[in-house]
């Protein structure tokens, strides 16, 4: 079954301690919830452990050995991540807590200073709450206009409407590169080019694309890109805001405090240079180091290989699910789709499906997946979502399909 898979899947699986776990008295775990958060390979855990056990120290201002080691490891991670996404310099890589903070940072600094009453921001109907609520908050504060690119019944963005919206002279287009529910991979490069043509900046929510596809900010020409380590085999508590250096330089600082300053008097401060200007207080040091190790792990596997593996999986899963009557998968056909399978069952509610699958060791998610408006669009209160990553197998898809069939029988 694994013949078409271009990398050593068993080897990869053995790198992830959690995947060896059994739950409910000996049922092996089948983890199909990587869209929510990915499992971590041993190398990431080791990198953080090494820091804590050997070099644990605060960074940047220290001259003692531990502080220098910690600083080198943390800033080395930033370099590694900068290279992973094709940034021009590590100064364009701002460490934040997660994708959500990255987007809020842009809204609260760039948005607050650059957007005026009546300015238009274009979003889409398939956004995660993290790329909706910050703009709603800013819109309420500043009197912005928000417009939304509709989602077609097939789960694609309606790009004709996007073109019309662009004619209204937006200041910003903010959209997800890959939907965490539909799996839709949006044509980011073309959408960004069109935004630039219309004089707008483009912010890409890369929470799902950076973990699953090769993403190059220079190729995309993205102005901002937000992503989270925990969704790409890295630790919780850290993510990145990428921004073009000139834009970041022109933005006011975000939070005030240690490290983001060059000089402070009682009543005034001068901001530090990039990237520190946006990183106030003691950063997530161990997490930055773990994020670097995560990116190194993905580099070793190769993002092209990750993408191909997931394509194999999702094609098979779509075929397999098409055979189960009463089950509806939402989202586009495989060629426009990452390895996310959100579905409904005629007979059973998503929460019951997820809970009953859990009894079989299968971890899937049920609910609105932080995309309530998208569910509203499809008139669904909730869906069950199975999502796949580099460590998942075709056999696990079979187990999932069998589990769904079993639930169906229970509720028949």
């Amino acid at each position, binding site marked *: 079954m694994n013949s078409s898979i271009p990398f050593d899947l068993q080897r990869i699986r053995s790198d992830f301690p959690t995947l060896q776990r059994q739950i409910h008295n000996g049922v092996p775990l089948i983890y199909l919830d990587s869209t929510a958060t990915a499992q971590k390979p041993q190398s990431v855990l080791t990198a953080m452990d090494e820091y804590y056990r050997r070099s644990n120290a605060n960074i940047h201002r220290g001259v003692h050995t531990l502080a220098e080691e910690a600083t080198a490891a943390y800033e080395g991670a930033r370099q590694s991540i900068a290279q992973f996404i094709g940034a021009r310099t590590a100064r364009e890589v701002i460490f934040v807590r997660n994708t959500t903070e990255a987007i809020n940072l842009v809204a609260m600094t760039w948005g607050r200073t650059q957007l005026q009453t009546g300015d238009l921001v274009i979003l889409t109907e398939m956004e995660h709450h993290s790329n909706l609520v910050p703009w709603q908050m800013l819109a309420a504060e500043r009197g912005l206009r928000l417009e939304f690119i509709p989602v077609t019944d097939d789960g694609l963005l309606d790009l004709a409407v996007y073109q019309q919206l662009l004619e209204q002279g937006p200041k910003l287009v903010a959209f997800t590169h890959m939907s965490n529910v539909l799996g839709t991979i949006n044509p980011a490069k073309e959408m960004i080019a069109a935004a630039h043509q219309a004089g707008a900046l483009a912010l890409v929510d890369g929470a799902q694309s950076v973990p699953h596809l090769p993403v190059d900010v220079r190729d995309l020409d993205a102005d901002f890109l937000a992503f989270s380590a925990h969704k790409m085999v890295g630790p919780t508590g850290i993510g990145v805001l990428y921004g073009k250096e000139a834009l970041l330089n022109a933005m006011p600082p975000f939070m005030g405090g240690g490290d983001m300053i060059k000089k402070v008097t009682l009543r005034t401060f001068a901001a530090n240079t990039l990237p520190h200007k946006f990183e106030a207080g003691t950063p997530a040091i161990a997490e930055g180091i773990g994020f670097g190790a995560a990116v190194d792990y993905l580099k070793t596997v190769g993002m092209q290989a990750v993408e191909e593996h997931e394509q194999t999986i999702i094609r098979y899963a779509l075929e397999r699910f098409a055979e189960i009557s009463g089950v509806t998968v939402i989202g586009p056909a495989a060629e426009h789709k990452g390895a996310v399978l959100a579905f409904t069952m005629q007979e059973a*509610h998503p*929460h*019951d499906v997820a809970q*009953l699958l859990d009894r079989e060791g299968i971890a899937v998610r*049920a609910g609105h997946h932080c995309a309530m408006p998208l569910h509203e669009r499809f008139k669904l209160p909730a869906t069950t979502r199975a999502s796949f990553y580099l460590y998942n197998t075709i056999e696990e898809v079979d187990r999932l399909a069998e*589990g769904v069939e079993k*639930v169906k029988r229970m*509720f028949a």
Partner: protein
Amino acid sequence: MDDMYREIIIERYKDPHYRGTLDPHDYTFEDENPLCGDQIRVDVRADEAGMITEAAFSGHGCAISQASADLLIESILGKNVEDVKKMTKQDILDLLGIELGPVRLKCALLSLKVVKAGLYGLGEASDALVDDDEEF
């Protein structure tokens, strides 16, 4: 697979005994669990002594939410309003006869929350109605 879903839950979900609305009613309340879209309305009639004579629920949602509503209604019929106000999380868990994690607990407790908010005549249902300890 089905140890958590005792037969009675699936049964009551598929074929509830107390589904409907009552008009007129003495108490009514409706609430939803926005996380999963579960929605429950409960109508209650009581006599002058405060004894519950009739009750019915409507709404939609998962098996746990709907079955627990049905079982809850069954259990409050003939009880005094004041006693029902005192019902707790544990009473619902006893009715269902299964263990539940924090997320599913919300599904299970929705109907009790709705019933109590109705009986107390509240404008809004609070989690504190069904949860005495620190909640997640």
